[in-house]
């Protein structure tokens, strides 16, 4: 319960009551059903804009934690958010909300695709969906980047470029990039605060 109080106290007014497991399940069910080829834009929209369960900074911070840990990032995010608001039951409810429906749907789609995947313009539709999904991820990156660029253009923004250069352009293994960048970024953030 202490966790809940901390989170509520930090959130901008007016503080919404901490969600219960049932609400977490329902909210992440919507997220899971919305995202194509990655649900991050939808998770951000639900958590920050629609329900205001997390502030912009809290979301970026939680996501950073999830990306530092191994495993599917968005799955880790359900655990972080669920556990923070409603303990183990909340974590389990959020996780089940996220995965149950998509797993059922993807199995149905796999069966359908086996039969009709090459028919007519279905391949063109899937290609267009993939292109649009990439654009949504780019928009998410831009929305996350803007507050950081404004708040800390010198101490934080360069680490965005370095992470992008290492993982996106050079295609270096993520573990190496994180091992090199994370301690440096944390040290700079630490110095900047004092």
């Amino acid at each position, binding site marked *: 319960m202490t966790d809940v109080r901390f989170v509520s106290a930090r959130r901008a007014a007016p503080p919404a009551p901490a969600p219960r497991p049932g609400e977490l399940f329902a909210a992440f069910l919507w997220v899971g059903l919305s995202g194509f080829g990655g649900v991050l834009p939808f998770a951000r929209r639900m958590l920050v804009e629609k329900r205001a369960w997390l502030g912009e900074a809290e979301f970026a911070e939680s996501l*950073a934690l999830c990306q530092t840990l191994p495993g599917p990032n968005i799955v880790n995010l359900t*655990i972080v958010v669920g556990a923070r608001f409603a303990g183990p039951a909340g974590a389990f409810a959020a996780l089940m909300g996220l995965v149950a429906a998509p797993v059922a749907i993807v199995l149905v789609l796999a069966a359908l695709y086996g039969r009709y995947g090459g028919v007519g*313009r279905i391949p063109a539709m899937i290609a267009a969906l993939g292109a649009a999904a990439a654009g949504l991820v780019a928009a998410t990156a831009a929305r996350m980047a803007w507050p950081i660029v404004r708040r800390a253009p010198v101490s934080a923004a360069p680490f965005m470029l370095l992470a992008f250069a290492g993982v996106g352009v050079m295609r270096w293994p993520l573990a190496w990039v994180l091992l090199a960048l994370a301690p440096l970024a944390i040290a700079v953030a630490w110095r900047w605060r004092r």
Partner: protein
Amino acid sequence: MKGLGETLGALAIQFCGLSLVAFGGANAVIPEIQRQSVGLHHWMSDREFAALFAIAQAAPGPNFMISTLVGWKAAGLAGALVATAAMCAPSCLLTFWVVKLWDRYRDAPLRHAVGAGLAPVAVGLVASSAWLLSRAADLQWRLAAVTVVTALAAYLSKLNPLWWLAAAAALGLSGVLG
């Protein structure tokens, strides 16, 4: 052909291991999933793997579901459930444990510096995903245009992103994207 129990065991071992090394999410371990499923266990051909990956991308939901489809291909519904659970459970337990520590030290200055330091790195990684996804998806200039227009539209408006996906799907079906 091996027995069902043996295949389910192999799926559990494969995806439990991948769950704990998937730094940066499921897309980081796609090459390793392919190597094990096609080369090591012979559950499918390269072509079948590519098709399953496309379906996982096109379906709603998180992008780790390639593991669900590999399990399904290897051992039916039981395989799908075992692979999905194995891909999620180890990293979830780890995350659950770490986040409790994380929140306990919420007001510690060092923890704040960790959060503030990692946030821009995370943004760079999301940008990397966008870049790599668009390079995989944008096989010709019309598809690249779809990516750019979708990015701008989603950035500039607060409309549900599903509308942009629906518009792209409609364009694809109409045939104007070639």
